[in-house]
C-alpha cells in the first residue's frame, strides 16, 4: 500500500455509513472484482480463492472496505453481518492475513476491532484473530493458542446447549479476549505491541468493593519502589482530582532513592504546585521542600516571586532560605529582579545573591552603592565586600556613606585592612567633625595602621592642641578619640618628628590612661 493511497482514503468521510450494509457488501464484491453485486459470503470467498495468484491483489481493497465501514457494521442488520462473517470465516487465511497486513496504517484500528469483535460470528472472529497474529508476523503464545480457541469452542457449545443468557455471556468472554488480543498486535508494522488498553480492568468507580483508590496504588508503589502504567495512571488520577497535596504528603515520608518517588516528584513537583503552596497562609514548608527537591533550580522562579511579593514575613523568609540552599545558580534569575522599583525587593535580591554565594555581575550590583535607600546600599556593599576584586572599592564607598549602618559595615571590613584609597575620605571626615562620634575611635585605630602621612596628620589633629608658650606641642584634653589617636601614633609613628614630642609629653602625664596610650596600649572596645 502506498502512503498516498492511504491518505486519500482516510479523507473519505465514511465509506460505508452512507451506503448501508448492502452497499458495503456491493463494495466488497466490487473490491474482489466479483461479477455479481450481491454474492453470498461463502461464494464471494470462493470467488476470491478462484482468482489464483491475483487473489492477494484484492487484499487491500477488502481491508479498506472492511475497516472503512465500521459504522455500517455497528448498525448493519444481522443477515448482512452473517454474510460478512461467512465471507471472513471462509476466506483463506493467507488472503485474510495479506488484507490485515495492508491495514496497519488505518487509524483507530482498536475501535474498529472492537466493532468487529462485537458483531462478527465466533468463527469469523477466530479467523480474524489467527490472521491478525500472522499479519503481525508473531506466533501466538501457548496460552493464547490453547485458550482462545477453547473460549471459542465454549461459546459454540453454550450456544448449542443453552437457551438462557449463558450463550451471550460465553460469547462475550470470547469477544472480549479477541478484542484485547487484536489491540496489542502491531499489524504489519513490526513495531512493539501497543498497550493492551482493552484489557484494562474497569476503571475506578465501577467496581464497588473491588475499587482501588489511587492513593493506595501510590502508597504501594512508594513502598515497593515500583513504577509502570498503573502507577502513572494513579498519579494522574490523583492530580486530576486535585489531590496533589496528598501526593506531596506521601512523598514526604517516601524512602530515598525510590523510583516511584522520583516518578511522582516529576509529576507533582511543578512550578504551579509550588506557587499554590507558597500562596497558602501559613505555608507548609515541609511540603514545599518536597516540591523544591523535585524541581531543583527550576523552583527558584516561584521562590523568588514569593520572596518579592508575599505579604507574610514568614513566607518571605522561608522562600529566601530555600533559595539560598539552591546555591549560586539562582543568580541569572535574580538579576532581572534587581530592576524592581521597591527598595526592599532590591535589598532582598542582593542579600540572596550574597548568601547564595552567587557569582553576581559585580558591576550590576555596584550601582546600588549609591542607591537612595541606605538599606539597599548596605546590602550591596556587603556583597561587594565578599569579593576580593571589589572589596577595596566597597570599603571606600562605605566610608563615604552618611548612614551609620553603612559606615559600620565599611569600618568593620576595614579592620581586615584599610585600603590606601580610603584614607583621604576617612581623614577628611574625621578631621572635619562630620564623622559619627561612636565610630571615631575605631577609625583612628584604623588610621594608625596605615603608613599614609594623611593618616598621621589626622592622628596628630586629635592628639595635639596647639603649642605651649615656649613652643612645645601641647596635648589635647583627654578623650576617647585623643587616647585612640595617641595610641596609634605610639604604635605607628613613635619616632616621627611631630609625634615624638607629643608621645614624650604623654609619657610624663599624670593620667595613667594617657601614659598607657603613649605606649600604644589603648584598645578598640568591643562595641566599636
Amino acid at each position, binding site marked *: 500500500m502506498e502512503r498516498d493511497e492511504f491518505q486519500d482514503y482516510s479523507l473519505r468521510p465514511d465509506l460505508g455509513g452512507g451506503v448501508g450494509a448492502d452497499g458495503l457488501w456491493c463494495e466488497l464484491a466490487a473490491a474482489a472484482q466479483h461479477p455479481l453485486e450481491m454474492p453470498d459470503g461463502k461464494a464471494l470467498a470462493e470467488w476470491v480463492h478462484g482468482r489464483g495468484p491475483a487473489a492477494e491483489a484484492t487484499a487491500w481493497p477488502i481491508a479498506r472496505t472492511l475497516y472503512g465501514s465500521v459504522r455500517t457494521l455497528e448498525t448493519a442488520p444481522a443477515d448482512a453481518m452473517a454474510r460478512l462473517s461467512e465471507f471472513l470465516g471462509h476466506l483463506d487465511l493467507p488472503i485474510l492475513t495479506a488484507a490485515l497486513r495492508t491495514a496497519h496504517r488505518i487509524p483507530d484500528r482498536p475501535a474498529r476491532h472492537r466493532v468487529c469483535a462485537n458483531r462478527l460470528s465466533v468463527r469469523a472472529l477466530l479467523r480474524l484473530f489467527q490472521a491478525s497474529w500472522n499479519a503481525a508476523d508473531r506466533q501466538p*503464545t501457548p*496460552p493464547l493458542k490453547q485458550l482462545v480457541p477453547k*473460549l471459542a469452542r465454549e461459546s459454540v457449545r453454550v450456544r448449542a446447549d443453552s437457551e438462557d443468557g449463558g450463550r451471550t455471556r460465553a460469547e462475550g468472554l470470547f469477544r472480549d*479476549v479477541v478484542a484485547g488480543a487484536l489491540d496489542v498486535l502491531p499489524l504489519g508494522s513490526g513495531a512493539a505491541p501497543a498497550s493492551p488498553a482493552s484489557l484494562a*480492568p474497569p476503571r475506578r468507580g465501577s467496581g*464497588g468493593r*473491588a475499587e482501588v483508590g489511587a492513593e493506595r*496504588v501510590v502508597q504501594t508503589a*512508594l513502598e*515497593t519502589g515500583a513504577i509502570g502504567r498503573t502507577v502513572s495512571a494513579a498519579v494522574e488520577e490523583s492530580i486530576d482530582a486535585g489531590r496533589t497535596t496528598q501526593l506531596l504528603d506521601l512523598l514526604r515520608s517516601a524512602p530515598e532513592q525510590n523510583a516511584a518517588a522520583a516518578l511522582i516528584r516529576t509529576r507533582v513537583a511543578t512550578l504551579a504546585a509550588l506557587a499554590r503552596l507558597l500562596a497558602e497562609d501559613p505555608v507548609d514548608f515541609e511540603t514545599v521542600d518536597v516540591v523544591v527537591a523535585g524541581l531543583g533550580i527550576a523552583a527558584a522562579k516561584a521562590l523568588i516571586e514569593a520572596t518579592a511579593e508575599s505579604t507574610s514575613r514568614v513566607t518571605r523568609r522561608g522562600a529566601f532560605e530555600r533559595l539560598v540552599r539552591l546555591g549560586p545558580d539562582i543568580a541569572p534569575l535574580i538579576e532581572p529582579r534587581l530592576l524592581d522599583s521597591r527598595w526592599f525587593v532590591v535589598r532582598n535580591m542582593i542579600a540572596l545573591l550574597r548568601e547564595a554565594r552567587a557569582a553576581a555581575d559585580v558591576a550590576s550590583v555596584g550601582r546600588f552603592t549609591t542607591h537612595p535607600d541606605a538599606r539597599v546600599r548596605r546590602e550591596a556593599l556587603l556583597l561587594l565586600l565578599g569579593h576580593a576584586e571589589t572589596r577595596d572599592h566597597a570599603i571606600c564607598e562605605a566610608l563615604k556613606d552618611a548612614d551609620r549602618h553603612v559606615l559600620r559595615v565599611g569600618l568593620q571590613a576595614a579592620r581586615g585592612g584599610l585600603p590606601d584609597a580610603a584614607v583621604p575620605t576617612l581623614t577628611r571626615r574625621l578631621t572635619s567633625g562630620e564623622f559619627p562620634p561612636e565610630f571615631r575611635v575605631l577609625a583612628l585605630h584604623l588610621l594608625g595602621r596605615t603608613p599614609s602621612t594623611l593618616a598621621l596628620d589626622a592622628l596628630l589633629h586629635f592628639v595635639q592642641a596647639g603649642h605651649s608658650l615656649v613652643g612645645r606641642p601641647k596635648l589635647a584634653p583627654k578623650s576617647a578619640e585623643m587616647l585612640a589617636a595617641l595610641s596609634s601614633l605610639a604604635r605607628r609613628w613613635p619616632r616621627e618628628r611631630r609625634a615624638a614630642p607629643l608621645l614624650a609629653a604623654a609619657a610624663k602625664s599624670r593620667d595613667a590612661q594617657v601614659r598607657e596610650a603613649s605606649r600604644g596600649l589603648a584598645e578598640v572596645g568591643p562595641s566599636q
Partner: protein
Amino acid sequence: MSETPLTEELDAMMWVHGEVRAGRALPVLEVDVIATSLFSELRRATLTSLPRATLAGESEYLAAHAVNVTILSMVLAEQVQLDEAAVRRVGVAALLHDIGMALLPDALIEKAGQFTTQERELVKRHPADGARLILAADGLLDLAAIVAYEHHLKTDASGYPALRYRRPTHYVSRLVQLCDIYHALRSPRPFRPAWPAEIVSSFLSERAGFEFHPVLVAALTAMMRRYETRGEWAD
C-alpha cells in the same frame, strides 16, 4: 468436584511463571485470557462442584495454587455479591497473588522441611516482588498489584510486609487471602499432609475478626461446606 482438570489453564499459568522467571515482562494479555477462561469454566460449575486444577507433581504446585485460588476467589466474590466485572478483576488478582513466588528458587518452594530464617525472609519478599512485577506490567492492573502486596496482611495488623503508610487492607486482598489460606491448607505439601476441610474451616473461623474478615470467613466456610461434601478439595 467437576471432572474438568483445567489443564490448559494450568499449563498457561506455568508458562506465565516461566516468563517471569526468565526476567521477561508479565504477559498481561495471557493472564487476562487465563482468568477469562477460568471465569468461563465457572459458568459450567454446578451448585455442588467446582472446577479445580490437579497437580501432577510438586513443580506444578505454584501454578495449580494460582488457578485454584482464582476459582475459589471468583466464587467467593460472587457469593458476596460483587458484580461480574468485579469478579473478573478478582480473578486476575487471585491468579497473580503469588506471582512474586515465581522469582524464588524451585527448591525453596518445594522444600520439605521448615524454612531457615534466611529462607523465610526470602519468602517474605514475594508480596513486594509480586506487586513490583504487576505494577511494571503494561496494563492497568491496580487491584492485582494491591492483592499481591497485601495478601499476607492481617486485620490485626500482623503479617507482612511492614507498611510505611498505615491503611486498612483492601477488601479483595482479604478475600483472596482467605482463599489462598484455604487452598494452601487443603493441599498436601512436602512438609505436611493436607488438612481436613472442617479443620481448615475451624482454623479460619477461630481467627475471624482478628486476623481475617469475619463476613468473608463466614461466606467462605458456608460456600466450602457445599462444595466439600465429598472432600474434593484434597489432592
